[in-house]
């Protein structure tokens, strides 16, 4: 089993709420993503067992939603918003700064497996731009100093 007993319970609790079981697909994928940091075929099979929806239908839904990585990513998934409001506030230079600090290009993972850097579409942080989401948290109104402090903090916690 990939899913922990806690994750399984969480999925079962979600499932119990809905009038139709297939509605639990996205909540179940979210629980799996929060535990694993990404999704794969094996976990679709486990979810299928729990909620009673065919594996294929779970994979079909999962592959539509780009929020869930389908391959393993670094411990910290850095997602920089590169949409218009953030771009006007320097998202391009933020990405370049992160590439320089992490020694990787966008789309890559650092050799120590700590950081993956990607760009994503608008995260609804337009008036606190530029911003990035690291795993599930937002980091907003970014400056080079703030980015340095965040990376340092994450490295020390890792």
């Amino acid at each position, binding site marked *: 089993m990939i899913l922990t007993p806690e994750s399984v319970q969480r999925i079962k609790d979600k499932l119990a709420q809905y*009038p*139709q079981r297939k509605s*639990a697909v996205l909540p179940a994928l979210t629980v799996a993503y929060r535990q694993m940091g990404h999704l794969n075929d094996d976990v679709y099979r486990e979810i299928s067992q729990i909620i009673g929806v065919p594996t294929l239908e779970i994979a079909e839904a999962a592959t539509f939603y780009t*929020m869930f990585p389908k391959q393993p990513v670094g411990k910290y998934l850095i997602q920089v918003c590169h949409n218009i409001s953030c771009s*006007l506030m320097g998202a391009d230079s933020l990405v370049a700064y992160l590439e320089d600090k992490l020694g990787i290009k966008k789309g890559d993972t650092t050799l120590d497996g700590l950081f993956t850097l990607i760009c994503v579409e*608008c995260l609804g942080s*337009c*008036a606190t731009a530029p911003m990035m989401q690291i795993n*599930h948290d937002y980091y907003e109104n970014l400056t080079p100093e703030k980015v340095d402090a965040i990376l340092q903090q994450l490295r020390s916690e890792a």
Partner: protein
Amino acid sequence: MTFYSPVITNAKEAAESEKLHLFKYVEDPDQPKVETYEMHGGYQAWKKVLSTMSPAEVIEEVKKSGLRGRGGAGFPTGVKWGFVPKDSTKPHYLICNADESEPGTCKDRVLMERDPHGIIEGMAIGAYAIGCHLMFIYIRGEFGHCAEMMEKVKEEAYARGHLGKNIYDSGYDLDMIVHTGGGAYICGEETSLLNSLEGERGMSRIRPPFPAIAGLYACPTIVNNVESLATVPHVINRGAEWYSSLGTEKSTGTKIFSLSGHVNRPGNYEVELGFSLKKLIYDPAYGNGIRGDRKLKGVIPGGSSTPFLTPDMIDVKLDYESLVEAGSMLGSGAVIVFNEDTCIVWAIKKLIHFYRHESCGKCTPCREGTGWLEKIISRIEAGQGRPGDIEKIEELCENIMGHTVCPLGDAAVMPIQSAIKHWRDEWQYHIDQKKCLVKSEFAF
């Protein structure tokens, strides 16, 4: 350690105002607590509705208020509720659309973070009006902190008897589910949202049937935006007449505008509809002018799907009718400001990349057209534009516009068409000279 930054609002102005209401308490850190919300008069409208009003009376009151959908389309909320068949034996559903993802828009998030009970109360009143006993809030997946907040306050609402069985001894039962999505912009479109909520890929449905007739699980369903629903308790408490006295004759009430881009004070501001766009950008109480003392180049007034306005056009009122007259739209109320250092081709490249990425792939004109547009626009931006590219873009836009099941196709092309109309010379320069007229190099 997280760096969620408190977004600037005009809560102080709202607190002292007789007219503004959505932002009155958003700077009060205790407002999300149910006790604080109740102390500020919260759930009184819900009590009033359950004890003294019939569903038809609620619908009539909201119709009379003139409240229009705040998600982008501007359809009258009460009229929408009235579409649910009265004689249906199927369950009815109300869904609060919190899939906020139109670039530039960050207003619903503030309400979820800072006045979440107001959303629940508005949802409850809407649910009662359409005869619904199970309501949903669909929150975009990335807003995990909003989902946590809504789960928490939902439990509080149950504990205080605002939700659940036999609410306030009225005999009315109402349950609520907090649902999260998977980061797809298209799921903000109501029929795609319904598919997503049913566990499917978020692809749009052909209408008719409209969701009010056959929506979630093929049952009558109403989908309303967060801000629309958060407004409803105020309409009930203070009356349709009061609400319709705010704003303009056809665009009643107040609206939250998300102001972003090159302004000194980006933020969320609640103002009466009909407020001056120029004032919103330049007044020290709001945007406080263009950043770095640069000149204004253009403004998108209603989210990235709406046409640009040029500096000579910003003396316009922010209401549904005035913006249409000016050649744009109010949309979701996301005002994006561009200074003179912005290369228009660069800006449009960012936008078309978004729409290509977010197209669900159902309709050929949108799926193929946005991809084609991104290729051409990217090559112009990279200095590899060819003669005839502008005309090709225009032709593609025409072939997408109006030819798709949902409005994403139209949304993708409207800013492009207006950017070519207003700055055609700059596009031509980019193709001829193989470089930007102005270089968009923005430090952070």
